[in-house]
C-alpha cells in the first residue's frame, strides 16, 4: 500500500503506536477472562480497571460511571433504550434532524413502536433554535438526545443550554459525543449530561470498542442482556485488548487536548486557501461554533464522488455526504437539513484532520485540488456563468 494523506479522521482514525503497544500484551500472553477465578484472569481484570480510570479521567467522570460498549452505535442504542425502558410511562423523545443514523434510525423505529419524536430543525449554519426545543419539551418527554458535534460539518451544539432545558422539565439527557471526545475538553462533574456516547476508533483506539458514560444515579436498563459483566450494565465477555487500547487512547487524548490549536491552524489554513484560490466554494456550517479539525466545503456545480475519486488518485483520503458514496445514494441528510442549495449539496467534501496531519500534507492537497476541481467543472454542464 502506498502512503496516503489521510484527511478522513471523522470516519475513523489510525491506531496510535502507543495504543497498540499497550494492547498487544492482551492479544498475546494476558488472554485470561477478567471474570475468571484465577490469578491469570485477575491480572486482566486489573487492566480493565486501569482503562476505566483513564476514560473516566478524560471525561471528568467517576470510574463507576463508565460502561464499555462495542462501538458508538451501540452506545447510542444502549443509551436511548435505557432511558426509555427506565421511564415506561413517558412516550416522547426530542432529537435533531442532523443526528448520526445510530440515533436517527433508532428514533424512526421507535416512532413505529408508538413513541412520538420531535426532530429539531437546524438553520443554514447547522444550529438549532433553543426556542423550538423549549416549545417542544413537555412532562411526557422521556429523553432529549442531541449530538455534541456533527460528524459531517463539525458544528457544535450548545450542549449545556440544551441540557438545562431538558433537566428543568425532568427529561433524561443523552449526548452523542463520538466526534467531540478528544477534540474539545469535557467535564461531567459540571455538566447536565446524563448519558454520553463515545467511540474508540475516532480517538486513535481500534475499531470495535466504545464507552457509554452513565451518570451515577441515572435509571438504567441494560441493552445487552446476559451475564453480570459491567455490574449488570453490559453483558458479554469484555473486549479486553480493545478496552486497554481505549484507556490508553483516552490518556493520550487528554494530554493532547492542549495542542488542538495546531490542528485548528492547519484546518484554517486549508480552508482559507481553498476559498481564496478556488472560485465558487463555500464552507458549510457555522464558521466558529465548530470542531477544530473539521472542514466541510461545498464545490459548486460538481459531484462529490467524482471529487473523492480524483483525490484518491493522488493518495488523498477525504469523504463526502453526497449521493453515491455512502451506499445510501441519498445526499447527506445533514446538509439537506441545513437547506443548502443543490449546487452545494452534491459537491461537498469533508476534510477531517488529526494530530498526525502535517503542514506538508495540507500543502500537497492545496497543490492538486485546484486542477481536480477545474477538470470536473470543465466536464460539468453547469457553471456559475
Amino acid at each position, binding site marked *: 500500500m502506498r502512503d496516503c494523506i489521510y484527511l478522513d479522521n471523522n470516519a475513523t482514525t489510525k491506531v496510535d503506536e502507543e495504543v497498540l503497544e499497550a494492547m498487544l500484551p492482551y492479544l498475546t500472553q494476558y488472554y485470561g477472562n*477478567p*471474570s*475468571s*477465578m*484465577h*490469578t491469570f*484472569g*485477575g491480572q486482566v*481484570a486489573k487492566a480493565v480497571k486501569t482503562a476505566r480510570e483513564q476514560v473516566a479521567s478524560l471525561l471528568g467522570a467517576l470510574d463507576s460511571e463508565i460502561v464499555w460498549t462495542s462501538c458508538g452505535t451501540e452506545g447510542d442504542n444502549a443509551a436511548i433504550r435505557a432511558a426509555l425502558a427506565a421511564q415506561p410511562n413517558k412516550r416522547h423523545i426530542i432529537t435533531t434532524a442532523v443526528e448520526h443514523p445510530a440515533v436517527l434510525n433508532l428514533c424512526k423505529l421507535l416512532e413505529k413502536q408508538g413513541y412520538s419524536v420531535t426532530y429539531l430543525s437546524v438553520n443554514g449554519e447547522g444550529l438549532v433554535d433553543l426556542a423550538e426545543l423549549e416549545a417542544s419539551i413537555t412532562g411526557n418527554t422521556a429523553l432529549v438526545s442531541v449530538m455534541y458535534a456533527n460528524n459531517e460539518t463539525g458544528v457544535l451544539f450548545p450542549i449545556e443550554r440544551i441540557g438545562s432545558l431538558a433537566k428543568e422539565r425532568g427529561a433524561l439527557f443523552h449526548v452523542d459525543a463520538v466526534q467531540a471526545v478528544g477534540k474539545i475538553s469535557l467535564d461531567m462533574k459540571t455538566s447536565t449530561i446524563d448519558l454520553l456516547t463515545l467511540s474508540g476508533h475516532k480517538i486513535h483506539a481500534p475499531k470495535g470498542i466504545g464507552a457509554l458514560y452513565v451518570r451515577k444515579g441515572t435509571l438504567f436498563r441494560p441493552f445487552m442482556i446476559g451475564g453480570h459483566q459491567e455490574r449488570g450494565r453490559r453483558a458479554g465477555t469484555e473486549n479486553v485488548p480493545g478496552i486497554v487500547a481505549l484507556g490508553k487512547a483516552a490518556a493520550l487524548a487528554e494530554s493532547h487536548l492542549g495542542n488542538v490549536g495546531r490542528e485548528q491552524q492547519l484546518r484554517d489554513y486549508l480552508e482559507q486557501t481553498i476559498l481564496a484560490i478556488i472560485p465558487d466554494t463555500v464552507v458549510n456550517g457555522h464558521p466558529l461554533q465548530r470542531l477544530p479539525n473539521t472542514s466541510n466545503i461545498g464545490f459548486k456545480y460538481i459531484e462529490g464522488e467524482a471529487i473523492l475519486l480524483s483525490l484518491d488518485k493522488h493518495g488523498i483520503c477525504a469523504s463526502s455526504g453526497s449521493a453515491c458514496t455512502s451506499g445510501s445514494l441519498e445526499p447527506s441528510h445533514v446538509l439537506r437539513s441545513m437547506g443548502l442549495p443543490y449546487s452545494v449539496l452534491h459537491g461537498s467534501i469533508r476534510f477531517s484532520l488529526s494530530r498526525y496531519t502535517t503542514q506538508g500534507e495540507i500543502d500537497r492537497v492545496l497543490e492538486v485540488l485546484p486542477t481536480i476541481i477545474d477538470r470536473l467543472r470543465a466536464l460539468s454542464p453547469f457553471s456559475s456563468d
Partner: protein
Amino acid sequence: MWEYTDKVMEFFYNPRNQGVITEKKEGEKVVTGEVGSIACGDALRLHLKVDEVTSVILDARFQTFGCASAIASSSALTELLKGKTIDEALRLTNREIAEYLGGLPEEKMHCSVMGQEALEAAIFTYKGIPLESHEDDEGTLVCKCFGITDSRIRRIII
C-alpha cells in the same frame, strides 16, 4: 476474581487451628457450635475448650466447608478467640474477623458472619441456653450458602 487480601490467602493456604479438640483435662469443658449445611454450600463447626473456673477459652479449632474467605474467616476466628473469656468472646463481631484479615470483599462479608454465628452457638451450648432454630426462621433466604435470613444479616452486619 475476588480481591482477597494477602492475609486472607495466607489463612486460606495455611489455616491455623484446623480440626477437632480431642483432649481435655479436669476442669475444662469442650463444646461445639455448628452453622450451615452441605445444602447451603457453607458450613462451620467450631470447637472450643474452656476453663470452667476462669471462663477463658484455652483452645479453639474449626472445620469448614466453604469458599476461601469462609475458611480464612474460620481460622481467623479461632486465633481471635484464644485467651478471651466467654463474655469477651460474645462481644466479638464479624467486622472484627474481617478486619483481622485486612478486610473482605463486600459480597463476601457474610462468610465472616458464619463465624460469629457458630461462636454464639458454641457459647450458648456452654451456658446451656437453648439455640434458636433456623428452620422456622421466616425471612427470605438471601445467602443460599448457609441459610441465614436477611433480617438476621441486618441484625449482625449493620
